[in-house]
């Protein structure tokens, strides 16, 4: 009976994998807000209201000019969005946030109101990794939220395996590292050893506010303020934690697997 039941349930459930990226992306929750947009030209002169409410000091303002919001430090609490008197900082509801260069996460200057999305790996690396990317994940002070929403990509709804992307157990089997957490001092040795154990050429993806810049723990002496302190990073995926869709977008973007329209 049990076997028949199992088969019946299986048939009833059908295929639950989403059609994205061929179909539309699943909608972000309406209160999520997505990536931020900063229109520095709207900043009132001498205004620093947003800086005073930002828990990670992601917003700075030089003596002359508009504010600069570093989306790498941002934990997306939206306190700045709520308080900005001139609506210079707004939410875009856009899930796409992965960038290749750290400076592409800094918003505010004319022409840099939004982040500059990542470009695909060069042809040589794409030839190597484009259809088969194996990643070794290292949590280095991660709170288990980035880890959990990365694990989600392996479930039937997202089915990361269909893109040829897989998280592997050994760094020897990996093409790169996928780092979460602010890189605690106590994980330095383990992270370096894991990085060294991955054969070249290799890529490194820093996922979440912590791995990019230390997240809520920025400045603590017990951490490194992000993975870049120890290893060269090829992609930054902001969020606290990033939505699974944001992570998937980043991975596919890196491999050049997204159509131009997205």
């Amino acid at each position, binding site marked *: 009976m049990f076997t028949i039941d*199992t088969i019946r349930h299986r048939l009833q459930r059908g295929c639950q994998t989403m059609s994205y990226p061929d179909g539309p992306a699943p909608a972000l*929750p309406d*209160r999520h807000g997505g990536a931020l947009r900063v229109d520095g030209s709207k900043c009132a002169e001498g205004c620093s209201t947003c800086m005073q409410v930002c828990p*990670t000091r992601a917003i700075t303002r030089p003596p002359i000019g508009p504010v600069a919001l570093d989306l790498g430090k941002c934990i997306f609490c939206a306190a700045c969005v709520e308080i900005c008197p001139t609506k210079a900082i707004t939410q875009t509801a856009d899930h796409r946030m992965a960038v290749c260069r750290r400076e592409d996460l800094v918003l505010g200057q004319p022409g840099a109101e939004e982040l500059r999305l990542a470009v695909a790996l060069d042809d040589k690396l794409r030839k190597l990794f484009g259809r088969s990317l194996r990643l070794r994940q290292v949590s280095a002070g991660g709170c288990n939220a*980035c880890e959990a929403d*990365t694990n989600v990509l392996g479930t039937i*709804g997202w089915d990361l395996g269909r893109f040829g992307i897989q998280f592997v157990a050994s760094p020897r089997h990996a093409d790169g590292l996928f780092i979460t957490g602010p890189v*605690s001092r106590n994980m330095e040795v383990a992270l370096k050893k894991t990085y060294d154990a991955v054969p070249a050429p290799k890529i490194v993806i820093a996922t979440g506010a912590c791995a990019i810049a230390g997240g809520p723990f920025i400045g603590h002496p*017990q951490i490194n303020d992000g993975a870049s302190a120890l290893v060269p990073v090829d992609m930054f995926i902001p969020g606290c934690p990033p939505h*699974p869709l944001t992570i998937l977008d980043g991975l596919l973007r890196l491999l050049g697997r997204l159509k131009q329209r997205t």
Partner: protein
Amino acid sequence: MSASTSFALLANATCLSMSDVPEWPVPDLVRATGVELDRGARLCAWFGVPEGNDVRLVAVIAFDADNTLAVARSTPFRGEYPALTATHSQAHLFEREVWEQHGLKPAGHPWLKPVRRGSGGAPVNGEFFRVDGREIHEVAVGPVHAGVIEPGHFRFQCNGEEVLHLEIALGYQHRGIEGALIGGPHLATMSQMETIAGDTTIGHATAYATVLEALAGSEAPLRAQWLRALALELERLANHTGDLGALAGDVAFLPTAAACGKIRGDFLNLTALICGNRFGRGLVRPGGCRQDLEPARASALLEKLRPSLKDVDEAIAWLWDANSVRSRFEGTGTVFTEQANTIGLVGVAARASALVRDVRFDHPAGWHRFAQSPVAVWPGGDVSARAKVRCLEIQRSGTFLEEQLATPPEGDIRTNLPAPNPDSLAVALVEGWRGEICHVALTDATGCFRCYKITDPSFHNWTGLALALRGQAISDFPLCNKSFNLSYCGFDL
């Protein structure tokens, strides 16, 4: 309990003036705490507070049957004191921590080692316990594990397949949370509380908000308490569902593993429906909640909740239908009731060893004063019992949510808190999905934090995993580990 004179009594989520906390020479504090533990109290927190060049010890204990907490402290001292661990092993990690942080040496502690201290880019693990013999071999696992999980080190002493002893060495995730709280609250404090253990965002955020509210002699509006209670059960649903899926995966029972992975996400999305974040970041704030659950949103939540509850119910039924699953779960990784009591297990692990321990029932605060679920207890102490407790709690959280969503209280969602009382101590316990979360705050003369002690349920329960492995095949470690599913970062802080 009523005969207790050494401790000051207080209820969960309340505050005491420091001058009302009894003060004893440290040998008397240790003896008095031991007496209360012998009478059935539990150690919730045991920590040091610097006082000039000296340190005071503070003990927070819980009398579950009497629904009350109790607190006492030592006079400031330095150097050695008689270890509580020598007679009461549930204190063993607390005393190691006090020794590491303040240099107070618990004389007679059988295994005095660092807890989180690092040196040269790794924690100072010290010497591991070793079993000697020609047939004995040692297995070292971690810190980096085979999976998308947090780091920690496991050291097994094995005779063939059989594990004689497991020692767990953590500290890799240490981010300095407690230290950073001194002089706070700071701007980043709330976000740090939400990431003590990211999968327990609502639990820890609620404990922190409750501490601040207690210190202010106030509480959040009822509607906010209601919403926090809903979010806490959604967090429990998501994590328990994920755990059952992971347990199924570890015994290669894929139907439930696949289904629960998906359903877990559905529950996370319900939290995101409330506040935009799948883990509940940004929802709980001192003084209330940041977002409201308006009637239309509440109906949408209920509409999505019902099919997910039905799905998980079905996936759980497949699990228990399968002989192969039952035979792998039953009798694996047993922690006996007496052991569980001695080491002070909390939460799912305690209830699976037949201990009736649930903060929502024993020490109700917030909305749990008005609405309760029956405590889910199962005898056996094995993987099967821990899975059963989760199954029961999924049903009960589901029922709780359905009932509560139907009867929302009216009113504001947030209130402005008065400044925290100076020179006071506040305790908040919250039953997170893993178990008892304990936050204790002490304020200075200006109302800022002098000391803030966080005890994640994992701090009590890692020892349970070590005991569960005794006499087990080492190949059952992943299954046993998953059945506890403890937090590394919640422990490392």
